[in-house]
């Protein structure tokens, strides 16, 4: 459970908001708030995860600091979300990573790259690492197939299990039943809201991000990151099918589906993450929560490094640098996925669950 003081502060602010309601048109949080008269910890956790941090309500708020009511909903909800991600994570030892996600991300990244490089150097020898490999199976000449696939699969499955376990407990704690989780209409509605980033739209006006001016920049950059990520997942999946079922091992020609999808996704990710980092750099710190901002930066950097090393590997795959780049790329991918259940990636799961809950609630109301 989040700290009692934090819950009390969020409750204090929601009571003020519920007596005002001017922000009703911005997002889903305020209409959901209006369905309640009191705000227990579970209500606040749900509302916090329904908040997309567009910050429109902060700049529109006549009670924002320096007003004595000091209403700052984006900040208090970001604090609650950090607590949510941590509280529903597992195991306890690792969930502490949420506290220091910048440092942890950096360490995991550095260690992963070093481990992969070292393993290749020790097990395969420097001669192999620094020579040119071309043609089918070239990558596996450096890192064997099993060494590449099995740890990746294990890390991914572990991460998904931790996040799924967390979101199921989150669902139960916010009073959702198992049956509700399978509500097809709510599921569709939530999916449409998530895939369109509807609530970064601010009721049509856009976000107050990075500052008081309204802008759709964050929404579009986030789209680039998210759909770039999906394209890269698709590239990996297609490649896995080629390799596994068609017996056609990587590397693939420039105009093949995995390379086209992967390159497009990689470029989108680079533009999106650099754009979001630059917006974050300029953004007003007043409605921001520092721990969340560090978590955002760690995740964005991990995505950026993964995409950059992937693109670089593609560009130089027929040179002697390929072996080193492959090891570095695999290291960054490993770091990204190891940190997945203990960083900003978690927001996909908890926001999605909150959106489903919201779709159910609003359909009932």
């Amino acid at each position, binding site marked *: 459970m989040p700290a009692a003081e934090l819950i009390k502060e969020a409750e204090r602010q929601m009571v003020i908001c519920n007596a005002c309601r001017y922000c009703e048109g911005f997002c889903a949080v305020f209409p959901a708030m209006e369905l309640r008269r009191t705000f227990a910890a579970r209500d606040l956790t749900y509302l916090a995860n329904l908040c997309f941090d567009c910050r429109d309500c902060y700049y*529109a708020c006549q009670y924002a600091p320096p007003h004595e009511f000091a209403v700052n909903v984006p900040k208090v909800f970001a604090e609650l979300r950090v607590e949510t991600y941590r509280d529903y994570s597992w195991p306890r030892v690792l969930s502490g990573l949420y506290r220091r996600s910048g440092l942890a991300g950096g360490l995991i990244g550095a260690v992963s790259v070093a481990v992969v490089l070292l393993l290749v150097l020790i097990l395969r020898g420097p001669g192999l690492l620094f020579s040119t490999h071309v043609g089918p199976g070239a990558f596996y000449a450096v890192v064997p197939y099993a060494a590449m696939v099995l740890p990746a699969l294990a890390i991914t499955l572990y991460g998904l299990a931790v996040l799924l376990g967390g979101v199921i407990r989150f669902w139960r704690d916010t009073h959702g039943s198992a049956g509700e989780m399978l509500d097809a209409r709510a599921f569709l509605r939530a999916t449409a809201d998530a895939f369109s980033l509807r609530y970064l739209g601010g009721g049509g006006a856009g976000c107050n991000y990075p500052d008081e001016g309204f802008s759709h920049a964050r929404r579009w950059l986030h789209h680039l990151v998210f759909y770039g990520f999906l394209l890269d997942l698709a590239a990996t999946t297609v490649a896995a099918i080629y390799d596994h079922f068609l017996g056609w091992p990587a590397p693939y020609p420039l105009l093949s589906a995995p390379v086209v999808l992967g390159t497009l996704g990689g470029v989108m990710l680079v533009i999106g993450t650099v754009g979001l980092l630059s917006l974050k750099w300029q953004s007003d710190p007043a409605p921001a929560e520092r721990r969340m901002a560090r978590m955002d930066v760690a995740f964005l950097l991990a995505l950026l490094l993964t995409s950059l090393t992937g693109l670089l590997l593609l560009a130089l795959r027929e040179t002697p640098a390929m072996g080193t780049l492959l090891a570095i790329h695999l290291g960054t991918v490993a770091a990204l996925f190891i940190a997945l259940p203990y960083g900003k990636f978690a927001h996909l799961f908890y926001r999605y669950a909150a959106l489903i809950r919201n779709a159910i609630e609003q359909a009932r109301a």
Partner: protein
Amino acid sequence: MTDLTRVFDVVVIGGGNAALCAAMTARRGGASVLLLEAAPDSMRGGNSRHTRDIRYMHDRPSAFVTGSYGEEEFRDDLERVTGGKTNEELARLTIRESADLGDWMPEHGVRWQRPLKGTLHLGRTNLFFLGGGKAMVNAYYATARTLGVEVLYEADVARLNVRDGLFQSAIVAQGGASHEVRAKAVVVASGGFEANIPWLREYWGDAADNFVIRGTPYNRGGLLKDLLGHGARPVGDPREFHAVAVDARAPKFDGGIVTRLDSVPFGVVVNRDACRFYDEGEDFWPKRYAIWGGLIARQPGQIAYSIVDARGAGRFMPSVFPPLEAGSLADLAGALRLDPEALGATVEAFNRAVRPGSFDPSRLDDCRTEGLHPPKSHWALPVDQPPFWAYPLRPGITFTYLGVTVNRHAQVVLQDGRPAPNLFAAGEVMAGNILGRGYLAGFGLTIGTVFGRIAGREAARHASR
């Protein structure tokens, strides 16, 4: 940095809706414009920061209003609330010139939203701003900046130099120094004087200390007093203000919308002596909510208590302060420091007078009292089911009616009937010309927008001569 030694075409005094409309319009008319806002930028916008909707004339429904609102109906509504205390020429002008607000305001950055829940009674006549009044104010400041209006915050205008009805310059305290700002024309849009407690004391005595001011603490009326001193003809009753019932625990200033209480029709209201003093069920709350501030201002100690029982709880908009709760009326009286016997007697007499009926908050139902003075005409149910809740109430002053007389060009009219050629007024400082009494939701902004635009246009025209 703004160069305060140059001569501006137009200087606008104030930083709320009317001032911004005047500044943007004057700038678009080709004038160089300086806007002087007394508040710091974090608290800019006067009482406009607490608004949420604007009334305007329109002949068809749209995505944001549910039906038409014609000139005659608008005029009738104004007549009803003012009881005729309005200037017919200026009222008609305001109504007619409001017809393009649905387009003009978005052109200047404002965005609309559907009527808020609980405000459906305004859904046909009024447009709601996405995010409320501060969002509107922010949009106007951004547009003004883009247009090239110069804005100075924490700029307190002490007085105007006026010679023979001709404005010369404004004396401005800013950044610890005093400046004389010269301009060819001035628009005064600095609001009423409701935040000036010593001035209120002139009419209300000690009672003024118990008033809660719902809006900005910067509406001290200094410029209003200055204009009257320069011979501007006053309009509106200086003693009168618009006030609603707010929670007595509200901040002294700037509590805005969240401190108002809608519990009155669902129980009884007693004063310091534990006596009822007005019909709590006279009419629908939105129609009656505007009179309760004035009623409480005239009660001993300027305090009252809204009391509901378990039946009434939860029927009204949640408010920002929790109710005082007790299991019995005697305990509640203890918590409120009221005489328990007196409160018991008042509630018992009320309960005895309640006649059975079918309770329906959506219409003027037949649940009423008989043989009781004052009566409760609708929604009267016995107050006898614990827990009992009480909210302490104070008068929450929204705005004052005293202002300066203007003509249809927004020029300030002097005692001898002459209009001051380059001295214009807009917003609450002149709203009393049109809304001399009463309250019409979203109409203060209509006056401010219409007269702000007229004042800006005329001031720019004057400066270009």
